[in-house]
């Protein structure tokens, strides 16, 4: 059984997908959303298997939603769009599934067959997310699922990112969030201009660095403006110095 989510701001467009998806015995419609934010929240908390995602929507576009997902854990994405020349070229180049409006049942079934194939051989899921990120550029905001909806954090407000097994702790001035992501992926999404790695499992916002004091063996003690102390390991020291202009 595949759990599918439909995202489109126009009711007739949702109705069409609902009708055809609903007649498939191996598909359960897990949700329908008319705007980007509620769709993003559902995708992040409910983890559906496949999302039919309209690109043009109020609040958040389908591409912006996709850019926020963790590539390897992302549901299968089928972009549904009326007209989006730039994105289409990138979709074709990277074998990303999409449906062009209007589409007939035959094209819908072809797209669904590709989804089924991918569903049973779950590799290369991340490419849709990566293509979406290439289309939208670096995310200025990070979406964090909370109990009452999505919390949107400005990437400038993030002080440090600290990996912990399969999770990353995201520290802002006054709060801490736990995300099931890899540090590498998070840095890729947020862009490496603002953040610098100081340890295999820790990155900090360059603007938040306050002071450095040498320790033994080439390591340093790094103090953030908030007063928090972290260790800068020798391996990452030269990179940090070259980027902070020591």
């Amino acid at each position, binding site marked *: 059984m595949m759990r599918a989510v439909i995202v489109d*701001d*126009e*009711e*007739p*467009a949702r*109705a*069409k997908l609902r*009708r055809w998806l609903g007649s498939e015995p191996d598909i359960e419609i897990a949700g329908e959303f*008319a*705007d980007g934010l509620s769709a993003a929240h559902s995708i992040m908390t409910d983890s559906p298997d496949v999302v039919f995602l309209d690109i*043009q929507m*109020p*609040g958040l576009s389908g591409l912006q939603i996709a850019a926020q997902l963790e590539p390897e854990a992302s549901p299968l994405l089928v972009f549904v769009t*009326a*007209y989006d020349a730039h994105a289409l070229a990138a979709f074709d180049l990277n074998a990303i599934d999409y449906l*062009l*409006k*209007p*589409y*007939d049942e035959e094209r819908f079934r072809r797209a669904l067959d590709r989804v089924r194939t991918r569903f049973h051989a779950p590799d290369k899921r991340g490419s849709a997310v990566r293509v979406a990120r290439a289309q939208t550029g670096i995310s200025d905001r990070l979406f964090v699922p909370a109990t009452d909806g999505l919390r949107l954090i400005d990437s400038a407000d993030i002080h440090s990112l600290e990996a912990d097994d399969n999770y990353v702790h995201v520290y802002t001035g006054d709060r801490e969030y736990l995300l099931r992501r890899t540090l590498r992926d998070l840095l890729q999404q947020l862009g490496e201009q603002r953040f610098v790695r100081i340890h295999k499992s820790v990155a900090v916002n360059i603007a938040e660095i306050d002071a450095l004091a040498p320790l033994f063996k080439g390591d340093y003690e790094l103090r953030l403006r908030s007063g928090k102390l972290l260790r800068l390991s020798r391996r990452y020291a030269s990179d940090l110095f070259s980027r902070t202009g020591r």
Partner: protein
Amino acid sequence: MFYCLWLGLVYGTLSLLRSREQSVQLGLVQKALVESQLAQLQAQLRPHFLFNTLNTVSSLMQIDIGRADRVLTRLGDLLRASLGAGDTNTVPLREELRLLRLYAEIMQERFSGRVLMDWQIPEDALMVRVPAMLVQPLLENAFKYGVEQTTGIESIRVIARRDPAQLNIKIQNTGSTLPLGWREGIGIANCRERLRVLYGGAASLGIANDAQGGVVASISLPLRGVPE
């Protein structure tokens, strides 16, 4: 004799080259013309509107053939009108309103239940001539910003009023305000340029936030000296 022949050959070749050059140039001019016409056509057809409407029809026809047919007919009328509209001709407001309603009805079908339309058009305004397709982009903007980028139920009001000296048209939408530092886009600039060409300084067009937390576009046209 041979010399003449030779000369003739050279001149012949030269003029052949020249005419080829000319025809290349002519071709370039024609190409540019066709390209600009194409660009114009593309802008008029507004691909997002066109494809999303077709998708609406594709969905509706599975459940309600009559409704699907109505949307399709309205789309056809609208396309025909936008292909026929020149830059300078004017039409009675009645005719312009017909197109505005076609467009609004299609959008109401697409955003089912999310748009309330309110038309306040007095009888004495209907025959006043207005530039064809002038109000259309303003109504499109009202939908684009007031409806397409919101999730609630919004309303759009089209108001006409005839004064002794001028015709005033207002398009009001809820659901959006002009962002800080907002500047007019090319669409509005084009509308204004058309007004300047047609009426000199006697007509005006303005976009502003209104008191109800929405946006209002106001056009005013002189009643005298209106071009046919």
